[in-house]
């Protein structure tokens, strides 16, 4: 059963570090009819603005759950999650949705584009949701597609694009609202090596050029290796952190 986060844990100032994510003692339990699964067992974790963090671990270790909880896609049973110093679990569902629309972007393994909309319509959707006027939304969407070098494919539907192109559209959609954080759940998981490499290059480039924060859940070591920091999880715990060789922030 979902409970409200613990009141006793007060938000604290980020201090000298410019923390964009500050999660403390996060617990998430799933209950089905007979089974109780503790997906997160008191996870504490923080990310600085402009940082690229990879979360790794075996299947079922809780990495996607952690991402879902951090991004407000799922609720937690205990703990506190501050995004840009705002406690997302104290927000109402509508407020949290609105917050997500303005502050976050998502890149999923299976793209999750709306098949019935063109690339540009998919990209401008988060803007329209957050109340941007249609004309302005279209301009921003075009700029975002420019960023991922897909401007000329703007009118194409997802089914007319390759896997790599689809993921670029997803990235354009994630970035169109200039979000504080982009969450990636296996963003290269459905791509071949070449496309996966290109997508990671794009992500790294966006991080460097725009100081864009990325939190990426991945199984792929070469994807994780291109991040600034790797968090290793097991059985709902963070078991260790690792700084990949040669990782350096712009």
């Amino acid at each position: 059963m979902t409970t409200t986060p613990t009141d006793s844990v007060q938000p604290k100032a980020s201090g000298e570090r410019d923390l964009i994510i500050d999660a403390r003692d996060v617990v998430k339990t799933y209950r089905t009819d007979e089974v109780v699964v503790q997906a997160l067992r008191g996870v504490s974790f923080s990310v600085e603005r402009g940082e690229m963090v990879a979360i790794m671990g075996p299947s079922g270790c809780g990495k996607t759950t952690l991402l879902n909880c951090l991004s407000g896609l799922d609720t937690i049973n205990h703990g506190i999650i501050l995004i840009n110093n705002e406690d997302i679990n104290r927000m109402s569902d509508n407020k949290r949705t609105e917050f997500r629309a303005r502050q976050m972007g998502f890149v999923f393994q299976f793209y999750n584009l709306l098949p019935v909309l063109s690339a540009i319509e998919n990209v401008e959707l988060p803007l329209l949701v957050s109340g941007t006027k249609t004309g302005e939304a279209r301009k921003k969407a075009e700029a975002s597609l420019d960023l991922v070098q897909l401007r000329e494919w703007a009118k194409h539907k997802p089914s007319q694009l390759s896997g790599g192109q689809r993921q670029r559209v997803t990235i354009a959609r994630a970035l169109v609202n200039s979000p504080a954080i982009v969450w990636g759940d296996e963003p290269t998981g459905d791509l071949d090596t070449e496309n996966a490499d290109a997508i990671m290059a794009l992500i790294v480039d966006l991080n460097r050029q725009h100081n864009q924060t990325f939190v990426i859940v991945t199984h792929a070591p070469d994807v994780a290796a291109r991040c600034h920091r790797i968090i290793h999880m097991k059985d709902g715990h963070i078991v260790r952190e690792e700084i990949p060789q040669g990782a350096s922030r712009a």
Partner: protein
Amino acid sequence: MSDLFGLSMNYIMIALVILLAVALSTVGWVLLRNRVLFWIGVRNIPRRRAQTILIVIGLMLSTLIISTAFSIGDTVDYSITNQAYERLHSIDETVQASAGESDNPFGSSSLVSARPMAAADASQWVQQIKSIGGVDGAVRVIRAPVPVKDQASGLTEPVVVLVGVDATSMQGFESDIQSKDGKQLSLTDLGANEIYANESAADKLKISVGNTLQLFTSGEPHEFVVRDIVKDRVLTGAVAGVSRGLVLNLSQAQALFSRPDEVDLIAVSNSGGVHNDLSAGTQIKAAINNTLPKPFLAASTKQDVVDAANQAASFLTTFFVILGLFAIASGMMLIFLIFVMLAAERRVEMGMVRAVGTKRRHLVQMFLSEGMGYNVLAAAVGCGLGVVVSIGMVRIMAALFADFGLSIVFHVSARSLIVSYSLGVVLTFLTVVFSSWRISNLNITAAIRDMAETTPRQERPRVSGVGSLIRYAFWLLFKPTSMRSWITSILVCIGGVALAAFSAVFYIAGVAIYGSSAASGVAAVLLFIAGVLVSATALVIAFTGFLRIFQLGGLAILLGVPLLVLGFASGQAFPAGAGLSLEIAGIALLGIQVGVPNRLAATAAGVVLLVAWLLLAGGQLFPSLDGGPEMFFLSGVTMILASTFVLVYNADLMLVVLTRAGSVFSTLIPSIRTAVAYPLANKFRTGMTIAMISLVMFALVMTSTMNSNFNRIFLGDDALGGYQVAISENPNNHIGDVAAALQSTGTDGAALADGIAVQDEVRHANQNTAEVRNVLLADTDPKSDAAKFSKYDIRGPSAGFIGDNGIKFQSRAEGLDSDAAVWARLASDPKTAVIDGNAVGGGGFGGGEFSLDGVKQGDPTFKPVTVQVRDATAPGTQTDVQIIGIITPKASAIYSGLFLSPATFSSIFPKPESSDYLLKLKPGVNAGTAADSIEKTLSSQGVQADSLRKLIDGFQAQNQGFSYLIQGFMGIGLFVGIAAVGVIAFRTVVERRQQIGMLRAIGYTRNAIAISFMMESSFIAALGVLSGIGLALLLAYQLLSSDEFARSGIQGFYVPWLQIIGIGGFAFIASLLMTIIPSRQASSIPIAEALRYE
């Protein structure tokens, strides 16, 4: 109801039960042979309860419609038969002077006997009839309508049937005169001034036992004391049209009517009581006729009424089944749609099942098990709800038929319920088998990976040189690329055609064996059903063969040509319209084949089809071709298909408009965008749902608009023919001069007379004896039914009426250029006549059974048509007259019948039955008040006075009532479309689970998701509703503004907006309600869970 489509209902029931058993045993066989597959199918039923409920609703609609139609048929059958048995009671045959076919006292159109019989002769015949085997009684009867006043209540009734029955010969009829509580009464108990009043008379005049009644015959009052109130029976004066009656001894009645030596009929009772074996009557009737001198003949009265009840019930059942065909077809489309969606939902599952080794037939068995699970439940619910719907409809019918003296009582037989249930299950079973077979054809890999199944694209040949042009043309029309493919395709075609020819064997064998015994009857019904199935399969095979040979576009063009030729050769619009539609569709398909974009081709074809059908309806295209009611169905289906194509291929343009409109509420834009984008992406599903809603809306709005416009015909004063009040006199009390009659009653009467500006008389021939026939047919085809004399209202207008009336004509004889010229000709030429509009084009609705040959509805002029008029009881009265004018439908409601010149009428009918008087009132005199006062003042003479406006309003109300009844029934079909919207909504929630998660992730609130779903449904429903309304109004406008309808008196175009908004609003709101649950489901999907779902 014992027959339907000419087949015994018992045989139909047994045949359907056998088919039901076959359907159920098929599933039973699956259970026994493949228990796992059976349970895989059946366990899906409780998986999603809301969806299951919706599927059951979708599946039950066809059964509901069938069950409603059967229940109404049963009700009508039961009501008429029951009333016939109750009122005729012991009477099985009646003996009267022969005067055509309307001689039974129950259904007689006139209360005055065509030709009385001498009382002494009748007495002798009674004895002879009684001696015939199987007869247990015969009695002499005299009767006539009389005005009656109840002294206690002061109430007066101008028409009460006074019956005199020979009290000395009541054997066999003892139970016909019964008190309300069932006590047997005897006429011999009546004192000299005593009388029995029947229940209807008692109700109307508030008569109690012991009250004194004043009867008027020949204007003279006679007083009687009511000894008891008796049941409504023919022998107590309850006949068709008038149920109020009084009964007393024959001799007293003869004295009152001043006809001491006459009787009107002999009533005969067969042995076996009221519910005896009717078939025995045939022999008895023949035996009676052998003993009677001509022109006196016996009629099987009870048998005739029971047969008529059966025919009426069969007609109504067929009528409602046909009315419901749109809805039944839509219901079957919905079943198909449901199963296609279920298959789409379980595609991966099905792919897996196939991958592990199951065969295609196993998938069919799986779906069949599930489908039959829904089916057996849905058909039962449909049957039950059909009964509930029919109870509601019967209530409305009861109110409508009350004016015709028919008491409608709800009744449904177990046989009808069994037939409805079995038919519902069998129809759904067949649809499920077809759907299952269709969806089981899947690509295993594509199914497992949930990828779209691709069909190889046909490469267009390159054009370079003459040879390649020929190749290109060949490619445009034909498909086969190898000799083997040609041979196979041709063989498939031949196989289909051969099977179609073979299917005739089933029908021939069915006809041959039907009726010889119960078993052969059932076998015949099964053969007919098998014939239909084999024919349908043959058509599918032949069509498949043609499709293997021809490209679709080429095939459409090819099939269109013979239809066009047939249409023009036969002068019929139906084949020509169908051929034209195929040509247009074929050209569009060819266009797509050569590279024209789908949107352009579909839009162009759709618009051209719409315009073509509107021009056809308005008579601007192919004006020389004739069309009947079937054109309504063809035009409806074609126009709906055309508009659906235009809509689904162009709805994205609406998105621009909606987005602009939605920009006022910027938060709605994302919802609008997804709400429109999804339906547009799935054109088949969207188009099918739009078409379902649109089709039913079209039928409803069309019926409503046409009826409203026809009803408005009566709104103007033209329908009144220049008069305000109509007075009918009692046949026993000739008035002659209404004003004088009023003046003779005193000061009040004189004042009423003073308000009359003009009074004109129109005499009536006895409806039992007045007959007419088409001379041309009698000469050219004397043996045909149409050449025979038919009963018709024959009227003798006075010279005053001819000069004063304002009745208009829809068609005039050549050379007569105005309505006044027609009337002037009638006044001056005794060999001429005019007739009401009901006699033209199948007519006979108002005036009788006659249908005028040689003039078509809508002809502005015609060559004078000669008809022959006669008094059937007076040989030698046959007279030829020329019809020179057809009265407008407006005026025909009041002025029905054939109007002869005064002199001709007098010569053929020297003793008219009665007269009508038509009054024009002085300015300021209220017609309604004047009519009531005149009727009251002249009550002792039995006159009935009516305001013509009030009469017309009554007709209108009745028409409207029937129209509502029909619309209500057709409206059931709307639920098919509404259910389709719901089914799609449920399906989309499952289908888009992950996308919903993504939308929630990027910022769609719960409300935005719910609104998006609601908007999506409302978008589909709105397109269906609006296209149905728009097309119906366009077609109705075209039809009503055509010359044909303009001449019928339709002026202007009236749109019944209130009704249309009501129907459309209901369909729209109900569709929205159907999506509330799926919308809520969609909005409450946990985001993380939805995103994980793959």
